[in-house]
């Protein structure tokens, strides 16, 4: 079972944390810190698995992580999950790629501004600590169906939701890019996309 999914950046700032078992607030923060500490001191060319760590479940627990540009994606799992299987789940085809599809070239900022959306994507993929869906297209269909509802609600308030959910593959409208965001200064040096 997956015990926790953590995403944090190169500086250890959490970008997403989802625990499938209950820990106290303090423990959760400690887990994030410890995990970051363990993961960040590893070189680029070493293996993606880590064992040991006192907080989640002791010897039975493993960290499987990937480092994409500025972000670390870490899955904390117990021995009943396949290491390589999870690694691929994070990797290109599933989680990150789904994010990429949903956000069109995902970057760290997307995760910050759309915590809720990322959580929703995650919920389609992993449910209660169990891998629910590994097919990217399936996940996107689900997420899209929900997004559509979002749009329709905004448009025709109170339209029967199930009619709306039947609509497929609609594109999100382009918004005018006239918002002044000049003063955002993220400390991360560069934010290339993950692919």
């Amino acid at each position, binding site marked *: 079972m997956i015990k926790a999914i953590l995403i944090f950046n190169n500086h250890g700032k*959490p970008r997403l944390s*989802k625990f*499938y078992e*209950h820990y106290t*607030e303090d423990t*959760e*923060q400690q887990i994030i810190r410890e995990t970051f500490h363990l993961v960040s001191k590893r070189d680029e060319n*070493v*293996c*993606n*698995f880590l064992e*040991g760590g*006192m907080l989640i479940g*002791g010897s039975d627990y493993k960290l499987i992580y990937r480092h994409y540009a500025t972000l670390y994606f870490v899955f904390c799992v117990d021995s*009943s999950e*396949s*290491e*390589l*299987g999870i*690694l*691929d789940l994070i*990797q290109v085809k599933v989680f990150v790629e789904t994010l990429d599809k949903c*956000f*069109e*070239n995902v*970057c760290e*900022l*997307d995760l910050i*501004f*759309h*915590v*809720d959306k990322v*959580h929703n994507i995650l919920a389609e993929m992993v*449910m*209660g600590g*169990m891998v*629910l*869906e*590994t*097919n990217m*297209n*399936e996940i996107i269909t689900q997420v899209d*169906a*929900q997004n559509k509802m*979002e*749009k329709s*609600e905004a*448009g025709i308030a*109170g339209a029967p*939701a199930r009619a709306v*959910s039947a609509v497929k593959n609609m594109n*999100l*409208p382009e918004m005018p890019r006239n918002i002044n*965001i000049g*003063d*955002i*200064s*993220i400390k991360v040096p*560069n*934010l290339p996309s993950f692919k």
Partner: protein
Amino acid sequence: MSDVVEKTLTALPSLLSLDSQPGSAKLSSTSKLGNLIRGITELTSKHEEEKLIQRELTSIKDQVSSPNTSMRQMKELMVRAIYCEMLGYEASFSYIHAIKLAQQGSVLDKRVGYLAVSLFLNESHELLLLLVNTVLKDLQSTNLIEVCMALTVVSQMFPKDMIPAILPLVEDKLNHPKEIIRRKAVLALYKFYLIAPNQVQHIHNKFRKALCDKDPGVMTASLHIYLQLIKENSEGYKDLTASFVTILKQVVGGKLPMDFNYHSVPAPWLQIQLLRILSLLGKNDQSTSEIMYEVLDESLRRAEMNHNITYAILYECVKCIYTIQPKSELLEKAAKCIGNFVLSPKINLKYLGLKALTYVVQQDPKLALQHQMTIIECLDHPDLIIKRETLELLFRITNGQNVTVIVEKMLDFLRISKDDYTTIDLVGKVAELAEKYAPDNEWFIETMNTVFSLGGDMMQPDIPNSFLKLLSEGFDSDEEDRKLRLFAVDSYVSLLQSEPNKLPQRFLQVISWVLGEYSHLSAELEPATVMTLLSKLLDLKHTSSETKSWVLMAMTKLCEGGVAISVAQDIYETHSSSMDTVLRQRAQELQHLSQDSELRGRVLPRDAGLMPLEVDSSLSFLDGFVSEALAAGAAPYKPPHQRQEELAQAKALSLEPYSLSLPISMSSCSIADRQSPTLMSMSSGLSGDSTDLSHKGGSTTLKLDGVKRVWGREGYLAQREPVEETAQVEVPSPLRSPSQQAEADSTQSQTPTPTVTPELEQDKQQLASSLFVGLGSQSSVCLMGKSDPTPQRFRRKAQGRASSSGASEKTPTSLGSTPSPVDNLLCNSLLDSNLVSEPTNQTPQASQSLDTTNGNCHEELTDVKENNPSLIHNNEEPDKPKDLCLSSHLPTELSGLSHSEITPLCSNQSVNLSACHVQKEDSLQLVIFIFNSSDSALQQMQLQVDSGELKLSLITDSPVEEVRSHSVAVCHYSVTVKRPSVHVEVLGMLSYQLPGGTPQTIQFSHKLPLTTFIRPLTLSTEEYGSMWLAFSQDTKQNLTLINDDQDPLTTTLNVLKKKLQLHVVEIIGVEGIVACQLVQDQPCLMHCRVHAGTLAVWLRSPVPDLPDCLLYHCQRALQEH
């Protein structure tokens, strides 16, 4: 920077599309989160961040509680609260609003509400109850998305008590036309199963339906449940093996739609899951394993090495092949696969390859030999994780010959490792190896010194304990013991002389104990010198007070002669006024005993470590003191619980008139005194021998009984002989001349040698031959039934596993069919050994594979065959009449009563264990029969039984210690329930010794259904009523009603009465009350009401878990009817 701007610009449109109305309101709300994030990123210190977030939280708090906030704004506020919580700041004020949002909002708001709830709350949070109604409503919604959201939140967390409320709805969803809903429903049910298995007991056939679902996705989801169920009880699902195999065959054969392909591999995650299930099913089961050989072969073949995910499948395949009953062709292929992993340049695969090797190497040490050069390279790998995994592998292949090299490698790693977890783990392993395989005293002591200094104060406390135990108990030869102790003393003295301030506390404690106990062995060492050394420790700044009291204890043992006494005097003066009472007491003792050498001789006799210390647990020697004190007017002792009771009574107003004050009788109070735990501990503390105290602690945690240590009293020499023998015959010892070395290399290394400079190469070769020495001899034997090079480790591990998880492993059948270790003794000393245990069902296969191995074992093989028939004979002959004659051995007091069927527990070729039980009014009588089927008597027999849930007490007057040949010994226990559980289990271990043989142990487990402990509880309706109100633990559930023509309630209750021995108190109309008790005196009351065609049951009991368990058995009873 332009990158950032660009990225943000592209990110913003989708962000803004959250709301489609473009306008100032929305913009400002988004920029609030933006502002916050911007603010945070600009900060430089944690402190500033804290201030900023607190400010943010205050503003969120103001807004959420304002009545004017719209749902839309609320949603945005929730996202901000989520963000703050993620950073670790509590926003508990927003929890209730998150629930409200989920309750009242539109679908979109709901989604954020549910998300916030699932991030904020946990299963036991009280606010969660408020969500139940919303979930109920959404589950019934016609909107798919709402249903999905409800199911998701349910599977994340749901209050256990409320599951019955939504269970029928979730069950219905299993028939939903949409596959996504079915899938989520299956996972939600899985979650229910995890938190409350009894509640979903009745829908197991629905799980089967989900497994057969036409949509592969739903089937995949149901595998999660099956993996869990099979993990818990593999016996119950053997019938599904064929289905799983068929599914896997179809998946591997590409029968699934293309949608399920991932990198052109068909449904890899599904394959992995199936392989795991199969390996659980096939474990220790020949016939089940046979069903899956073909499909495993197919998967191995199909999984071409082209992508990461195929490696994942291969890895599972290999593990499965090595877990189920072995088949040589498959093993060969799997071994090749492991080779590919280990040799792979990809580091992740190398890691998994090492893991696989570690897993496999116990059964097939030859494989490690094949990859020795790779393993050596991995030892120098820059990645610490790979290095550690390699050490783990080496740990598994350690034997008496390579131990020095391997331990050296481990210690090297320990010196550079910074990780606490690794340190603790490795230190334990080194200590274990050192104890088991130490080649000589000096090495042992020095290694342990390193372990103590590296492990520091983090290591497991049982390491120093067992080390001290080893020293004090010694081995067979006194001379050897003396040398070991002397060496320890010398090395510690020199350590203390150099740099005592760098040693960790635990090590200092060990040192002071050893010096106190054994420094007299050294002729040239004056007690005064040691005293001075020790007294320096007291002055060190970082010495803890615990260590100080160890030091003082040691000094007390040493203070002899003029100088020493004066040192003791000094110490006393400094510490007699210490703030720490323990230290002060120790100082007092030191003072007194140093003055009175005769008393000291009696209190602390030299070499008393081995003497069993007699403890007068009744404390009768205090009787005189107590009676004197009582006569002088002291209050009689009351045990704590009595004091509590009285205290509670004292708080209430007493309306009774004052009772007469009677003189307290002497006898009653002296009895009370004898139970005093405080006096007891004090007296043992006063006796002053801390060794015995620490040993007692050690032995309770360690459970060394079943573990034979090489460096133990019996094991050390006996084990060494065969090892040395083999070394001379076949394998080069680690330290040989170069020419012999080369010769050895040519015979040993089978892998092509990589091109490295000759010098380096030679180094590695040398290392290889020293690391893998001793494996070669075993490799020829390995095929015949999974030889285990280190029986004692195997046993220890098995114990751990048995206690931790698998019920499947504990079942008698699996124990019986586990191939017993055929060690390398087989080749050398087959004829004289009655140790060699060859299970009869293994024989054909084993001898077949033996035939194919051409080796020096060949001559002896014929012996195996010739010997075997007699073994089989021995085993089977007594089987038939056994059952009959066993019942005649029932204890006389039980012979009149009806007993359960006599079930076999486990057996090997010398002992058969079986058990039966007899239900008595106040307890369950468990009888274990030990049948000695060998031709010689069993000696030093010891049967230990234990159970987490039960209380067992031996009824037979004295434990049986010897069983004559072909006769039966009986152990009779009286059993009551300590803690109710659905199935209760007795774990046991029988250790015995055949004449001239080494001690052997055999383990078993025996399951008893809880129903055997249920007795009717006869009471009146009034009594029932008052008890009902007093009980706190309750459970409610609907049960199926047995419908016949007459009164369904009476019929159903009668069935329960008959099957579970419940007492039906009264039936009034559609309601009935029932009572029962669990032996001993654990009542449970049940209230039944017929409602809408089902039986609504409400159980109450003072005992936690009892209602749940009873409910489970009621369900079973009604189902079976």
